[in-house]
């Protein structure tokens, strides 16, 4: 058990991680709407508790694989706003020198093996990192984020089978937000709970409330500890909801879901819920919470200014980094 101080530190940490994700995403959404950020943005707003709750357990030596909706994972893993916004703008100072953009944002030094433009692209890579952790005799783990949509890709099934077979230290974290892009879950799979599938591979499958960061944190902690002990993978399904659209910001007034549903889920906004709990528990007053928001917003504004002013990549960059050892 953690003592009181450590626990309060953890709670504040979880809160800050979620606020950083929310602020980063909301600002990114604005920039996109203003036409400042090129390309497509898949925003993580609504799902913050999942990334924060899981990644709070990880060090830089533990890896994650992410999805097309990947900013939240990188922010939670400690991503630098300046390098992230610069990447979204396509600037040379970005995490990927402006060559990856939103859908491929990555920081291998932080163990973030990349957002991924291919739904279901991540699980095989995650088991590879987990294989490597085991091969190298480390205690490190890999968390593989994927959605309900990706659970229909063959790659997920191959990876799940191999992870269980090889007892790899990997946690399959399903962010079940109820939609595969614009298709509601009941129109893209006959099962409702992805966790049901875990038994089919011989691993535990667990469902937690993905809007409750402490529920996610506790369950992820158990799954990660199990993986570190060498007992193999776990499928952790977090029931969550995407407040915004699959791509972009608009989340209401759309053909594929009712506004009332969005509002119902917004009542369970993971950050609001958590702040109310923190206030009740006497850990963080509303004023203290507001101060965190202010601080993070100012961090974001500085980073956006940095990114806007940063130069685009030089033409020579076009052909750089195709190969490590060009012949």
């Amino acid at each position, binding site marked *: 058990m953690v003592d009181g101080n450590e626990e309060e530190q953890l709670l504040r940490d979880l809160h800050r991680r979620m606020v950083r994700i929310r602020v980063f995403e909301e600002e990114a959404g604005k920039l996109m709407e203003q036409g400042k950020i090129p390309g497509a943005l898949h925003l993580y707003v609504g799902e913050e508790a999942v990334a924060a709750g899981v990644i709070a357990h990880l060090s830089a030596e533990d890896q994650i694989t992410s999805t097309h909706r990947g900013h939240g994972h990188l922010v939670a893993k400690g991503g630098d706003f300046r390098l992230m916004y610069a990447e979204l703008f396509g600037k040379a100072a970005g995490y990927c020198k402006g060559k990856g953009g939103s859908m491929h944002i990555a920081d291998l030094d932080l163990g973030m093996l990349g957002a991924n433009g291919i739904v279901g692209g991540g699980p095989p890579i995650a088991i590879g990192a987990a294989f490597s952790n085991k091969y190298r005799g480390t205690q490190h783990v890999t968390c593989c984020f994927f959605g309900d949509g990706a659970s229909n890709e063959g790659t997920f099934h191959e990876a799940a089978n191999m992870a269980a077979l090889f007892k790899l230290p990997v946690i399959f974290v399903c962010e079940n937000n109820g939609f595969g892009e614009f298709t509601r879950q009941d129109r893209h799979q006959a099962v409702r709970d992805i*966790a049901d599938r875990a038994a089919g591979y011989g691993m535990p499958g*667990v469902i937690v409330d993905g809007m409750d960061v402490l529920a996610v944190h506790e369950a992820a902690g158990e799954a990660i500890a199990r993986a570190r002990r060498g007992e193999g993978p776990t499928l952790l399904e977090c029931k969550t909801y995407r407040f915004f659209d699959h791509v972009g910001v608009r989340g209401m007034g759309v053909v594929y879901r009712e506004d009332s549903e969005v509002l119902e889920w917004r009542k369970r906004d993971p950050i609001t819920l958590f702040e109310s709990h923190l206030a009740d528990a006497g850990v963080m007053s509303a004023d203290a919470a507001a101060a965190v928001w202010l601080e993070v917003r100012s961090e974001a504004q500085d980073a956006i200014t940095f990114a806007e002013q940063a130069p685009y990549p030089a033409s020579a960059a076009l052909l750089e980094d195709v190969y490590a050892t060009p012949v």
Partner: protein
Amino acid sequence: MPAPIGIIANPASGKDIRRLVAHASVFDNEEKRRILRRAVLGAVAAGARHFVLMPDSHGLARSAFDGLDGEIQCESVAVPETASALDTIRAAAQMRATGCGVVITLGGDGTNRALALGWRDAPLIAISTGTNNVFPTLIEGTIAGAAAGLAVTGAVSPAEVAPQVKCVAIEIEGEPDDLALIDAALVAQRHTGARALWQPELLRAAVLARAEPAATGIAAVGGLLRAVSGAEDQGLGLWFGPGGVRLRAPLAPGLYRDIDVRETRLLALGEPVALAGPGVLALDGERERVLRDGQRAFLRVQRDGPRVIDVHRTLHLAAQRRTFVQGGGSNPSEIEIGARIWR
């Protein structure tokens, strides 16, 4: 037409963290659907024609009716889906309003607790598809359904076979009341987290409506010290910590732990037990309510819970009454005569 049968199938039951920290099984939704299908067929065979369902996003419950003929009426109560216990609470309240004669639940202790929060004294048949199942029983869906059918047709009235069960009524200072069907425990935590209860060192005190040596969870902890059956008009209080006995008990499926119990005391119905925060009240094995520093909760064992239908007794009575015998109302001698004539 017989009164409707309410059906609450909790898709989330049997999937919590106890699959990870203990050794509980995953209860998948396909299995629940099949159990429900059998229950519906049993109920229809016993004469039921009208069902009211709790809706779910995938229509799992509704699909149990696929292909049944047009005589069967099946409707969903109108509640927004939140994928939380709120769905069950709202659905149960609506089933009462609709006039359901009996409710069939598929779930664990948590599911039935939510039902009771919405309809405290519901006539109930609880089929176990959860984790810590003290309240619902492992019973074949066909037979559970038949018993429900017999209840709504009046062939075997719930008044005959459904005694009201005890529960733990909970008052929390400054907050809404709550309820546990089997047990309520105070644990030394400040958050509900992943809900389930499996760490003995966190236990502080518990109030049990039933103490069952042949169960898992807090009910077993009490039951292995002093069994208290559902029929007894008393409950059990446990206070944890050193200075008493050390007990080995299954806190969750497959998870035996050594637990220090300082004091065990029988509780009269209505006798209040005051527990104070900081802590979390775990109700029927799930951390539900946070108590702040000094905030008190008063727990009482009362006999005002659901009226749980005794399925075995119902079927025995139906057999005695020859409810399933064709032609109805025949007695053995007539049957024998008829058989002889036919021959």
